Each structure stands twice: as C-alpha cells, then as structure tokens.
C-alpha cells in the first residue's frame, strides 16, 4: 500500500510514500471526534395528551376508555369506562411495579375489544418521571398509543 513502483523507460524508481503526515492528521481527527462523541444514544417516546385538541375530532370514540393511574406506593389502578366498567388495583410485586400483571389485564381487554389501542396514563403528583416513562414503555407492548393525562 505504501510502496509504489514506476517502470519508466526500463528505469526502476522504487520509493516509499510518506504517510507520517496522514497519521498526524488522523491522530488529530480521532482525538477531536473522541472528545466530541456522544456515547449514549438518545431515543424518542411518542406521547400525546388525553385532551388537547382545539377542535373536536370526527373519529368514532372507542367502545371503552382505559385509564391507568400510577400511585406512589407502586400500585397501578386500571380503570375501564364506557361499554364495560372495571376498576382493578395492581399491587407491586417484590417491591417493583407489576408490569407483567398490568400487561396481562391489558391483553385480556385488547382481546375482548380489538379496536381499542389507546390508554391514558396518569400518575400521583409525587410519582417520579422515570416511573411514568417505564410504565409507558411497558404499556406500549400491548397498547401502542399511550396518552398522558391528569391535566
């Protein structure tokens, strides 16, 4: 790669490319890029709000409305209103939010009401944002649309 030979009028001229300057450039570039590189990747979670439109939508409302409330004691309350009425408390398991339990309930609702694909998520005032985000992430496995509510 670094050695190039020319055959000109039967005179061999063998010389070596000087790549020391290229190495210098690369060193500076790599140092600069390493210094400015971001080693964490930022992603985006889509969220709307439960009631934010200026004008009323023409879309047919779903048969049931599902609301999930996050409590500070790691209990989630699943409220179903509309054609079905349900109020279920999902308590924490081993000191953790019981997301599998919540998804089980949501999956059973989804199997019964296949047109329902949105959930409104609210939380107690003291609930930390990270729990809201984790709940959204978990709910989206069953219900693709998660709207933030409570305001």
């Amino acid at each position, binding site marked *: 790669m670094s050695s190039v030979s020319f055959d000109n009028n039967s005179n061999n001229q063998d010389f070596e490319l000087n790549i020391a300057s290229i190495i210098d450039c690369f060193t500076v570039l790599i140092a600069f890029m390493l210094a400015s590189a971001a080693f964490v990747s930022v992603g985006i*979670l889509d969220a709307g709000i439960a009631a934010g439109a200026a004008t009323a939508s023409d879309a047919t409302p779903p048969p049931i409305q599902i609301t999930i409330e996050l409590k500070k004691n790691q209990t989630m309350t699943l409220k179903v209103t509309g054609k079905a009425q349900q109020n279920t408390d999902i308590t924490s398991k081993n000191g953790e939010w019981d997301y599998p339990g919540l998804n089980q309930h949501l999956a059973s609702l989804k199997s019964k009401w296949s047109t329902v694909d949105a959930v409104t998520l609210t939380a107690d005032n003291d609930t930390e944002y990270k729990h809201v985000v984790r709940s959204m992430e978990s709910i989206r496995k069953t219900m693709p649309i998660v709207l933030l509510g409570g305001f």
Partner: protein
Amino acid sequence: MSRRKSFIKRSGGSEEMTLQITSMADIFTIILVFLLKGYATGAVSITPSQGMLLPEAQASSSSVEAMKVEISEKGVQIEGQPASALTQFAFAGAEINSNGTSKVLSAAFEKERKRQLMIAQSNTDVKIDPKIIVIADQRAPYSTIKTVLASAAIHGYTDFKLAVIQGE
C-alpha cells in the same frame, strides 16, 4: 514526531531501518470511519444540562426536529433559554394558575407560538408544528411534568416527544 529511526548495529556495519506505519494508518482509517458513522446517528441532537439524568427506555430512533423543552432540577428551558425557575423540581406556588399551568411558562410558550405563526404567515412552506421534545430529568415529579405539558398544550403543542436514553 519523527517516525523514521536509524539504528546502528553494534557489531560493525550500519543498517537503516524504517518503522512500518502502514498498518497503523489502516487502523486509524477504520477508527475514523467508525467514529464518523456513529457521529450523528441519534434520534435527536440534544445537549442536556449538567447533572441531568434522562430516563432509560426502549424507544424509536427516528429523527425528530422540534422545539426543545428541558426540565431540570433548577429550571425549565425552552430552546436553551431559561423560561422558569424551579426549586428542587418544584414551581413556586404563586406561579401556578388555577388550570394547572404556569404563568411564566405560558407566556414563554405563547411567545414561541407567535414567532412560529409569524414565520408561517410569511413562508407558506413552514407549517405550525404541534411537536415539542421534552427533555426531563428522571427524578422530576409528575406534578412538574404536568404543569409544563399543560402550559404547552394550551398553546397548541400537543404532540409530545419524550427524550430518553435508549435502553438495551
């Protein structure tokens, strides 16, 4: 930074030796390509404030461009400009309206909305965007998040994109 060194054999006779740096150039090329590839692959280019802890979640990596609202322990920033002060993630009591919005933040969002409207009026290619990117600290209480989102929503910003750190 000379890379060419000459060595003199002790046992008589001299021989010039050239350092082989071709392989080093190859390695540097690979590292450079790798770094360039990963330089701007994030969904959104954000620079959170010092001490900010973003929540972690599995999220989409599609690129989004929208107004950025940052909620940190000491304040709320809109497009990098301080909009409202917070004390340990909490708004001052007098700042909250009866509808749960913040007076100062509402004014800041209104100003941004008016600016967007003015641009949209003079340039038909520009559409009024309901999207905002929310960059919030994971320790922020939901009450603060609610206040910020409500203040944004009353001015037409209803499509929230929550910035998170991509989990495994």
